[in-house]
């Protein structure tokens, strides 16, 4: 067959019909120069924040807000300090475990709620009633239930990340373009004879998961920011490790530069997880047009 020429290229994101021009880098690979642009963006952001910080420091005085240069110098020293690196490693472990477990629980549950109206009718009201509750308020109860170890912090982070991923995944499945499922059904004439479980698993693998994953990954990126904030509070209680503990400890010792180094480290930690989630999204959702 000869190729028909003069046809306009189109593009489609999961859940929407194919239309419009193809996005650059619409395949799995990030757009050319993406890494360099991202680094330049962060360099600009650091300069802008440092400028505003310097002005605020001049206005408030260094006892309230230390000068950025002093904090950067302290931070450069801290990252060679094994104790600081230990605190940072503990925070990274908690954050990674909380986000991963949150995703592992929430994504399948969101798929199931989006797919099965009866399950959704039972679970959605519970979800909507508990979603707005600030999860950090549960920390004292979690400490009582799970003890003083890592478990209550992990559960808190799982709740914080999981709720966001759950709501978004459920909605992504519910709002999925019905054409995808109809299209899938035309490809498998033997589906009617196949077991129901096998049919459902095939549908989940080839349609539901790819449709919902880009939205869930975006929720994961947003959750990573929220989780850093909650991590600070979780590490303020019943632990002697983590950046949150270090910040509170430096606060008590009136060590302003160390305290702000910890705050800077937490900000960087959030940015790294945000970018890592974006990278994961590009790897797992190669046909998606969502780009960080």
């Amino acid at each position, binding site marked *: 067959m000869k190729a028909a020429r003069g046809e*306009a*290229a*189109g593009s*489609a994101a999961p859940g929407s019909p194919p239309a419009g021009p193809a996005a650059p880098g619409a395949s799995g690979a990030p757009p050319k120069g993406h890494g360099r642009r991202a680094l330049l963006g962060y360099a600009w952001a650091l300069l802008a924040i440092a400028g505003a910080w310097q002005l605020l420091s001049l206005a408030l005085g260094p006892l309230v807000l230390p000068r950025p240069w002093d904090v950067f110098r302290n931070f450069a020293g801290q990252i060679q300090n094994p104790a600081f690196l230990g605190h940072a490693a503990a925070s990274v472990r908690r954050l990674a475990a909380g986000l991963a477990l949150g995703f592992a629980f929430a994504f399948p549950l969101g798929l199931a709620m989006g797919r099965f109206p009866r399950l959704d009718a039972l679970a959605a009201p519970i979800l909507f009633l508990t979603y707005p509750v600030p999860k950090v308020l549960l920390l004292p109860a979690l400490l009582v239930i799970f003890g003083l170890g890592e478990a209550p912090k992990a559960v808190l982070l799982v709740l914080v990340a999981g709720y966001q991923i759950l709501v978004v995944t459920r909605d992504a499945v519910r709002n999925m373009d019905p054409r995808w499922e*109809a299209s899938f059904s035309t490809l498998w004439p033997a589906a009617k004879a196949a077991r129901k479980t096998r049919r459902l698993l*095939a549908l989940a693998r080839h349609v539901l998961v790819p449709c919902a994953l880009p939205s869930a990954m975006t929720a994961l990126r947003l959750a990573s920011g929220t989780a850093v904030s909650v991590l600070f509070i979780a590490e303020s209680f019943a632990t002697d490790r983590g950046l949150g503990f270090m910040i509170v400890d430096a606060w008590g010792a009136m060590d302003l530069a160390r305290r702000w180094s910890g705050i800077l480290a937490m900000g960087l930690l959030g940015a790294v997880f945000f970018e890592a989630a974006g990278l994961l999204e590009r790897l797992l959702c190669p046909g998606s047009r969502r780009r960080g």
Partner: protein
Amino acid sequence: MGAAVEASCLGKSYGGVEVLRGVSLSVAAGGSLAVVGSSGSGKTTLLNLLAGLVPRGAYSGEIRTDPPGAGRAYLMQDCSLFPWKTVLANLELPLALAGAPKAERRRRASAALSELGLGSLGGRYPQEISGGERQRAALGRALVTGADVALLDEPFSALDAIARERLQDSVDAFLAGRGLTSVIATHGIEEAARLGDSVIVLGGKPASVRARIANPERRRRGFRASAAFFRLTLEIRRALEEA
């Protein structure tokens, strides 16, 4: 090789609203039938029934193929290639669902792409190729498992006029080359005249067959520019207006 398709007295209702009543049709093995009607005239419903997407108890009437149980491939409107899979992976999917081993899937999907003139586009995503290329890839996906009957629901409606005519020719040649039986739903009068060995006109509420028009000269060289073609389009137009 294609299979003959026969349907008698098909009827379908959605939520108490009757959308299709008493539709009968017959297509010879290797032949083509164009189903023409305005938007909402029940063409897609008819193709859904012929494709076997509607459970047996959910419609009235009979659908038979000769030989019985012939494979049916359905190309939906807007083609619906999955944008999260490459073109090649889209073509491999029906084979995977049918349980074909990985090497065979790759071989058959690649062969189908080459046959459709898309051999170099297997690694692209559907949103990175043109509308016509997507349509051909979707046709390849529908037929890669070796169906006997092709059901095409407004397959060219999203294309511009020139691309549509070229694709009509190439798809027609592809189906004829394989000896496949085809049923093509369209709202285009010229498209129906160009692609159907016979044409049925759907109309009314609920939709029923308002006219049956034979098109014996369709495969004659130069048919599209002939007086017979224009007479046929006038006849279809009149039937549509009266429907």
